[in-house]
């Protein structure tokens, strides 16, 4: 059977499961007894195995199968978690990731059998005392749990519908149905494990059932079944006037159905009947009849669900919202359309401005309305594109753990704000720079254990990754409590590499010295390790972040640690901008970069080292004459006040002198293409209401 159409889904879901496993195995390392974690791991491994099997990736299946066996033993308590085992499991995950990337490239899993890993897993299995095959153990385990419920094992194993918990409203429906001469049945349907389209089969079963009666409850829920988030069976409570045999036959008539079992739902034949009756008597007429097994006593019902994986899946899974997977390209085109709309709205606004007359008050009102609609529309589309950075940062704890072992330094990663959302394209790109910074912190930042002890720091080094939203920006900080940056060392290195002279170095501020780190091929690590220090770290980080219209800043204190602060715009495509005139040309400047707008008397301008500065409320701010910078004529009179935009980058300010202010505008950023020259000052272009192109000045590059 051709499964290629499922390949994308397979890859996506496998990635999710692997990430899940990574996270949980890390947790397991901390707390080897946590049953929830173990169950979660088991479930993820089980799903992986199933998926790999379905897609025909035998090697992947074998590996996950053995992993699942190990987890199963851990769950049963016959094997204790130890660090060797965790190491082995991580190696297995790496191997699985390798399979996955091979699959992604070639649609084939490759030929690596990973025998040592499989052997290692089996060794763990064999090392446990006594007992033969895992399968048997699992069966035993299940049965053991079943016994708690006074039910015939054989029957119980199959009729999972008896585990369904019915709430009062459902009972009432059943009750009323019975009054009308219907019968309530509980049915459990098993789909063949080889079935690829479980959801479709389940749908056909539902359809068949609906022809004969009414489905009251289904476990898992209809939504989960539609999403294929169930194993190979599902159970329903069903009302019908037809005899059970007819219903079962109808279900079995659907192809790829292995079996269907059912029984009439009554309260008489259950051990809880007694309680039910008591209940009935206690609460009077309201609560009557047709309580199925265990429904009055929730505790044993829950116990029974923890015994079998599929049921657990439906209960243990957090309630998911109704979601739709959308190709990012479709969102891109939607975003483009919104951009077009905003441009045409802007041109309407400019037309409205040029039409004089009293009759257009209404017209203006409509324009304003349109304006608010387009702004909201843009915001909504933007939100759709936002994803939490979680998916990207989740892989870091594992990476730090591996680094810790490799570098033989004890360290711990603390993360906050994983739910901070950013544009999808930004989230995809930000992973590598963050990884660089974390590696940097681990390798260069944190000191060795001896030095830490000398300095009175805790033995375990701490690395922090904090993300939060700040206005229209998202800030991600990577912080460590390590050595900090040794500025003298940086300067010496720069001199050694011939980047600066001794004199320059002496004049340099700390900040300028730190900026040296972001230059290409600059590494201060004395020993080049394979973790970092190849001299291609920070400059790549910087250029990547700047490509995302972000900025990076460093704060450091020798001996105490350093913080790398990354500031990223929430969205890339549409920004609020201030429109200004310089010379006779219009330019846009991102509003986010501008702090205040000042009117400055030319007499207040002082000269320091040949540079024009102003003293603004105690701050000395250097002026940037945009007209000179952009090769334009001075068109203002000497004594006229200057319009100065105070822009801020990190903790540095600059005053940008413009000739005229036009106003605030929502602009769509358009790329200019590679042929337009690579001017650092210009970060893009936008189309104005009248169809003219205005360039966007990058305030960051001006400071």
């Amino acid at each position: 059977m051709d499964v290629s159409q499922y390949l994308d889904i397979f890859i996506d879901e496998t990635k999710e499961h692997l990430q899940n496993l990574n996270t949980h195995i890390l947790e397991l390392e901390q707390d080897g007894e946590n049953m929830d974690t173990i169950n979660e791991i088991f479930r993820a491994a089980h799903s992986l195995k199933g998926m790999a099997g379905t897609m025909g990736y035998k090697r992947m299946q074998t590996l996950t199968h053995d992993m699942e066996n190990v987890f199963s033993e851990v769950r049963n308590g016959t094997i204790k978690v130890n660090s060797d085992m965790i190491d082995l499991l991580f190696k297995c995950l790496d191997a699985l990731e390798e399979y996955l990337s091979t699959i992604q490239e070639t649609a084939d899993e490759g030929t690596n059998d990973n025998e040592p890993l499989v052997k290692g897993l089996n060794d763990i299995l064999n090392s446990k005392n006594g007992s033969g095959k895992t399968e048997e153990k699992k069966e035993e385990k299940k049965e053991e749990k079943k016994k708690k419920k006074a039910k015939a094992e054989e029957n119980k194993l199959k009729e999972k519908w008896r585990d369904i918990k019915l709430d009062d409203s459902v009972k009432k429906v059943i009750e009323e149905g019975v009054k009308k001469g219907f019968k309530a049945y509980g049915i459990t349907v098993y789909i063949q494990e080889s079935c690829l389209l479980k959801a479709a089969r389940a749908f056909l079963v539902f359809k068949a059932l609906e022809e004969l009666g009414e489905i009251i409850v289904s476990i898992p829920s209809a939504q989960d079944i539609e999403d294929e988030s169930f194993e190979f069976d599902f159970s329903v409570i069903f009302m019908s006037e037809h005899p059970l045999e007819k219903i079962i036959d109808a279900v079995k008539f659907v192809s790829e159905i292995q079996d269907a079992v059912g029984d009439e739902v009554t309260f008489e034949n259950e051990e809880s009947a007694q309680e039910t009756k008591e209940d009935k008597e206690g609460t009077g007429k309201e609560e009557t009849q047709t309580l199925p097994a265990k429904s009055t006593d929730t505790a044993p019902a829950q116990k029974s669900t923890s015994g079998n994986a599929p049921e657990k899946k439906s209960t243990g899974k957090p309630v998911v919202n109704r979601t739709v997977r959308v190709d990012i390209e479709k969102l891109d085109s939607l975003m483009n359309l919104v951009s077009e709309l905003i441009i045409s709205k802007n041109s309407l606004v400019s037309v409205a401005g040029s039409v004089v007359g009293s009759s257009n008050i209404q017209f203006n009102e409509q324009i304003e309305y349109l304006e608010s609609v387009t702004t909201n529309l843009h915001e909504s589309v933007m939100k759709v594109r936002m994803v939490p950075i979680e998916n990207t940062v989740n892989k870091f704890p594992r990476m730090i753990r591996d680094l810790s072992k490799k570098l033989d330094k004890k360290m711990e990663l603390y993360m906050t704000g994983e739910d901070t959302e950013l544009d999808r394209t930004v989230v995809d790109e930000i992973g590598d720079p963050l990884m660089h910074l974390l590696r940097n912190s681990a390798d260069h930042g944190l000191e060795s254990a001896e030095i830490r002890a000398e300095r009175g720091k805790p033995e375990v080094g701490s690395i922090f990754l904090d993300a939060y939203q700040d206005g229209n920006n998202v800030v991600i900080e990577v912080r460590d409590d390590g050595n900090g940056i040794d500025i003298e060392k940086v300067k010496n290195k720069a001199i050694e590499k011939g980047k600066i002279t001794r004199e320059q170095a002496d004049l340099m501020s700390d900040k300028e010295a730190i900026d040296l780190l972001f230059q290409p091929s600059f590494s201060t690590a004395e020993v080049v390790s394979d973790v970092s220090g190849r001299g291609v770290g920070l400059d790549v980080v910087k250029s990547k972040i700047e490509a995302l219209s972000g900025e990076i800043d460093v704060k450091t204190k020798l001996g105490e640690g350093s913080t790398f602060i990354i500031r990223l715009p929430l969205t890339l495509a549409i920004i609020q901008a201030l429109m200004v005139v310089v010379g006779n040309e219009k330019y846009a400047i991102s509003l986010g970069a501008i702090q205040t707008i000042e009117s400055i008397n030319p007499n207040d301008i002082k000269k320091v080292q040949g540079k024009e500065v102003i003293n603004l409320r105690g701050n000395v701010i250097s002026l940037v004459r945009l007209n000179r910078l952009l090769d334009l004529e001075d068109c203002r009179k000497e004594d006229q006040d200057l319009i100065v935009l105070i822009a801020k980058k990190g903790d540095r300010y600059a005053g940008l002198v413009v000739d005229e202010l036009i106003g605030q505008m929502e602009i769509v950023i358009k790329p200019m293409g590679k042929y337009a020259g690579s001017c650092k000052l210009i970060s893009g272009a936008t189309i104005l209401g009248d169809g003219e192109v205005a360039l966007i000045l990058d305030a960051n590059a001006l400071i």
Partner: protein
Amino acid sequence: MEELALNVEVTQYIKIRLGDEYFGIDIKYVDNIVRMQHITRVPKAPSYVKGVINLRGEVIPVFSLRLKMGLDEIEENKYFRIIILKVEGESVGIIVDEVREVANVSSDDVEKVYHNVSDGIQNFLSGVGKTDSGLISLLDINEVLADKTL
């Protein structure tokens, strides 16, 4: 004719004028031909980059073919056109003095020219084609768009 066509390929060129010389641009690169419009200057760009224009919502850089080929600029007149080229997904406009017609040039009517550093304009040519209405110099678009001037 059928048999003849086996080895002879006919390529269509847009025939343009620059001063009193005619050049051909392979039609496969040509996306559009538009009249002159407002061009927004891009500061700090090479001199031959005249700026950017808005072409149906896209921002496209525009080159002066005259400056690129080392000729002097002349005053804009009504024959000026911007030819929008699309090369490897990137759009770029080039300003020419005039667009004349589409010329069919068969491959056996093309004389190769050999690039020679000192040859000036020849560096931008892929060959010279003979047509009924005279000779046209065939432009090598990749060379024209490369970051260099004469």
